[in-house]
């Protein structure tokens, strides 16, 4: 994945460039605090978010992506928070977006076109091909298997060139060859990548950067 210099507002802490920073973040759903007073920071590289169901992995990704707003605390990317940070983040959700008529190629192209950092077409085509997507990329999403649709989103995340990429359970529906290529793609990247997963063993080479979330105690 492409390289990015230090953007304006970026902070360096103890020699580590911190791209994503959560400071005292609390997020509640009803009476339950899913995240309570969470502070953490992530620099370039692959970071695993691990923890049991309901521990707040997806919530954390949604907070970083700006889909949810924290009830307390701040979330910033390169020193920027809120909607202004949205063009620096690409969230690959666990479910396929329900736009059944949209072809895989149009989906990749549409999402990438929203980012100023988009990768050149040749590089994207290479990723599409390596993911085994080429025979299916012109099919509508509604006619794809969930695994193929997930590959479309992975290709779109790569095509966007976004400096921060968030994956929610990315390998759930992928075949072994695609998982291997996906892991290579992550390993070669110098972006900040957060991966929420239960399959830690698949990501063993990144295990040193695992961030464990525990279910917050009831309010």
């Amino acid at each position, binding site marked *: 994945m492409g390289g990015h210099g230090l953007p304006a507002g970026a902070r360096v802490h103890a020699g580590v460039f911190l791209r994503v920073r959560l400071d005292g973040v609390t997020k*509640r759903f009803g009476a339950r605090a899913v995240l309570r007073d969470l502070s953490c920071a992530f620099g370039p590289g692959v970071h695993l978010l691990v923890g049991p169901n309901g521990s707040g992995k997806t919530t954390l990704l949604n907070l970083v992506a700006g*889909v949810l707003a924290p*009830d307390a605390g701040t979330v910033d990317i390169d020193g920027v928070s809120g909607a202004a940070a949205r063009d620096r983040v690409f969230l690959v959700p666990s479910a396929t977006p329900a736009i059944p008529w949209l072809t895989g190629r149009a989906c990749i192209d*549409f999402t990438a076109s929203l980012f100023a950092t988009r990768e050149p077409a040749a590089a994207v085509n290479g990723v599409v091909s390596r993911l085994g997507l080429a025979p299916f990329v012109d099919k509508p999403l509604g006619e794809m298997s969930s695994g193929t649709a997930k590959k479309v989103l992975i290709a779109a995340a790569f095509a966007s060139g976004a400096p921060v990429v968030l994956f929610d359970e990315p390998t759930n529906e992928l075949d072994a060859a695609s998982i291997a290529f996906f892991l290579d793609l992550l390993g070669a990247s110098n972006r900040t990548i957060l991966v929420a997963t239960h399959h830690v063993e698949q990501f063993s080479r990144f295990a040193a950067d695992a961030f464990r979330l525990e279910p917050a105690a009831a309010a």
Partner: protein
Amino acid sequence: MAASSLRYTELRRLHLSNALRTLSRRQQRTFVLVAAILGPVVVPLLVASASGFEVLVDPATPPLIRLAVYVAWLGATGLVVLALREPVFMLAARPFLRALPIARSQHLACDLRSIAVSYSLLWLPIVYFAGRTWWLGGDLVARVQATAVVGVAVLLGLASQALALNLTPGALGLLAAAAMLFSVAPAGGPAVVTAGLGAALLLAALALWRFHERPGRSSAFRPVLARWSSRFATATALAGPVAWRDLRHALGLRLAILAACLAAGSAMAHEGSFCGKAGGLYIVQCAIAALALQRIPALIDERLRQSLPWLFRLARARRRSIASAFLATMATFAVYAAASTGTWRALCVSTSWTRAQLVAALVFGAALAALGAVALRWNEASSWVATACLLALAFMLGFS
């Protein structure tokens, strides 16, 4: 990858047109049938709707009636938007789209355009009204004022519906204040009208700016609500939460039919010449309400069976969920019948309400309960039985 990318506005347009095309293909036969049967009725209906706008712009109209006409317009258009909510708002893909760097203004512009497109035939009364206002001549100031009043009503309606996805108490308050201002403004002189309508539009714009597509933040009231909702869930053996989570749009559609029926009754009562037929019209109102509500217990029961089969097998829980569904349905009908009675009584001074109206409400209430039980047993197949029974009852009571 392709050189020219799909734009967000185009994506929204294509999603809506694809959905409408699929819908019209699926509903083609029904459309033809409805058009054949209702064709001669459509024109008078359009004229009647346009006359609603005349009530809206008339400076002599009391603010409450103006508010009622505005709410009726909001209800009628809301019904269409509710029915087409998925293609209009791209509901299922919305979380994905929210995470993309798409400006809020673009989301808003697309929402407003899609809502406006979904109105489709409901634009006809507006065109008819505008045509009449400008072709018939008369005072220019009055014509401009009338057009502005209807224009603002339409814009307020669009804003309210665009906020439907994030209808927080704050947004609701601003929209209610805008509606109040709108209902009061046309009674004054040109300066008051301009200031009032302008302020109403400003409030609606503020609501859109403040609340449209803002990332979700938890409410401080949620813990209290959560406690009550948990009690509610237990008391209804999960029928309540299931109805809210899975069936709120289907139930909302039925409630909207009731609201539209009530609004139509109010408009006719206000018009005056229908007061002599109040009894017959009340019966029709009750029949429509019973028809709209009769499948609610069956819908809830069916959903419980699908989503919580383990609960469905517990006879006691099922009995409790069915009882609560019936109770809620009957209570809704009772409130509706009382509101309908109240409207006719308040607006038609000459109407003398006899025991016959009470009998009508009781008969249709009983029919609703019986048809609900039939629907529970025979499901969708019972719909034609319900229609036939309620039609027969309406004729019997109407001609008695």
